[in-house]
């Protein structure tokens, strides 16, 4: 039972990272039906910006904010340069472009900072809280991850449901044609979506740096793919779905590592993906849509 609760806590902190990345995937997919493969690499860039800021002596919160702003801009630039022209192109062309952007960010990263692993400065000296006579350990870093994630999630909900840009995003995602006829500026809305999604990924990057202390230019690949799995599990295009999907995936992975072998962890995520796709392709919270004939 201790193992279970310990892994639950580990899983929730890992899952928070997935959830933050998954939100960007799901928002972008919801609005322009693109699997933005480069999203995981934006998260990597976010981690490096956080790394730079903290090594310059910045505190955690300023570093987090800087990283979010930089990546928001990066996300918008990627969209404008690479994806915008392809909105009417065949889906496979768009997906390949996204893969190209992903490769580009990784290889440019290697060129710029080298392939080696960097150690994140110790922004929070680790404090362990022992629960139940030390049977379960929670670290202050895990708490920070979970708290920041929940706060960002609430902020996102507020933006999406209460602000003008959020309403525009929902309208475009529902029906871009109609939204345009209603006078919504689709281009700006798409840009905003990329900005918000990328900022969330950047936050995840900084949090991971703080949590695991180690970052490298390829760090975005696996979490990126898994966050996508999380988004699909939750129902792609559905914001709360991405959150729940991310947390669930984190917990399941932690439990598999705890009870089985961590070597199987990656397979579990993809097996879950395939089961969901076959049993309920629209995800846990999605609704079905079928092509009209």
């Amino acid at each position, binding site marked *: 039972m201790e193992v279970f609760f310990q892994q639950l806590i580990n899983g929730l902190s890992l899952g928070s990272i997935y959830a933050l990345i998954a939100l960007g995937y799901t928002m972008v997919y919801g609005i322009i*039906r693109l*699997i933005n493969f480069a999203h995981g690499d934006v998260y990597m860039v976010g981690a490096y910006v956080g790394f730079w800021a903290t090594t310059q002596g910045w505190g955690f919160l300023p570093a987090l904010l800087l990283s979010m702003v930089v990546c928001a801009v990066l996300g918008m630039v990627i969209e404008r340069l*690479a994806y915008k*022209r*392809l909105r009417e*192109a*065949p*889906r*496979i*062309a*768009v*997906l*390949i*472009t996204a*893969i*190209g*952007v*992903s*490769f*580009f960010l*990784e*290889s*440019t990263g*290697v*060129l710029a900072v080298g*392939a080696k692993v960097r150690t994140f400065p110790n922004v929070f000296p680790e404090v362990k809280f022992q629960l139940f006579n030390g049977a379960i350990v929670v670290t202050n870093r895990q708490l920070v991850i979970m708290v920041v994630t929940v706060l960002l999630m609430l902020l996102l909900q507020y933006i999406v449901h209460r602000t003008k840009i959020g309403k525009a995003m929902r309208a475009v995602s529902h029906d871009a044609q109609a939204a345009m006829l209603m006078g919504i500026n689709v281009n700006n809305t798409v840009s905003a979506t990329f900005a918000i999604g990328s900022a969330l990924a950047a936050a995840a990057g900084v949090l991971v740096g703080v949590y695991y202390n180690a970052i490298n230019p390829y760090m975005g690949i696996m979490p990126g*793919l898994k966050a*996508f*799995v999380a988004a*699909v599990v939750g129902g792609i295009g559905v914001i709360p779905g991405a959150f729940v999907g991310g947390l669930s995936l984190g917990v399941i992975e932690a439990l598999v590592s705890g009870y089985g*072998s961590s*070597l*199987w962890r*990656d*397979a579990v995520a*993809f*097996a879950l*993906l*395939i089961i969901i*796709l*076959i049993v309920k*392709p629209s995800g846990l919270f999605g609704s079905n849509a079928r*092509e009209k*004939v």
Partner: protein
Amino acid sequence: MKKMFFSLPNLLMALLLLAFYGLTYAGLEQGWIDDYYKLNLFLICINIILAVSLNVINGMTGQFSIGHAGFMAIGAYGSAVMTMKLGFPFGAALIVGAVGAALAGLIVGIPTLRLKGDYLAIATLGFGEIIRVIILNIEYVGGAAGLNGIAQYTNWHWIFFLTVATVLVIKNFMTSTHGRACIAIRENEIAAETMGVDITRYKVIAFTIGAFFAGLAGALHAHYFYTIQPTTFGFMKSFDILVFVVLGGLGSLTGSILSAIGLTVLSAFLQDYAELRMVIYSLLLIIVMLVRPQGLMGTAEFSYRGVAKLYDRLSGKGRGPGNDTAVG
């Protein structure tokens, strides 16, 4: 106008290929072709097999698979176990590797075929990763360290004739009623189905054929490079293969072959600048997609008639608008 197997153009092509085969063989024997060129020549052949095999799934049938390296892994490991551990001859190992991969293709194909587009892509990526993780966890095949000391059975004879055979088999399939059924699915799935094409059957067939030849390529790879690890067949490899097919033109075998050759040569040139290589490669990918999303060849193929037309056009004799079935 009956088309026959022993037509003049076919004989001409066969003659050219045999000449290439013979000259290269002499070159390898005499040492005119050094190890570096040999390596890249073999890589080109393996990449051609991979590209045309993925083209059956992604190009011809219009399904979206991005887990091709998984099938390659099965072929590589299956065949290596046959020769290394069980002492079978190479020929038998090739067959086992390819058939094993084909079976995996069948298993992957059946449940994922209900999925479309992006979802299918992600599911195949997932399957590719699952195959890799399963291999990683099998102690018998070396786990993360992989298999080392595989005998180098892959020689010029094997690789040349198997590459030619692969292209021929896939081309013959594509230009038959069965291949047309696959293309019809790509062009319009609903119309194909209402015109009597059993779409599930043909999607499974496409997956199986594609996986079979990917397995063959994996087996050739394993028996050329002495060593294989699970990481060799990660999704980076799958993406590499995907790039061949997409840059060449989805649905064009000629395009797949040309881009497999071109990109292999390009990466050989950039070998010394490994870091820069990926930057250039990725930029190339993005630019081609932005400028020519249908790829180099679109769905067109090389044909003698096309060459003749192109010649007419270039020499100013051509009338009317250019036809896309030419080489360009």
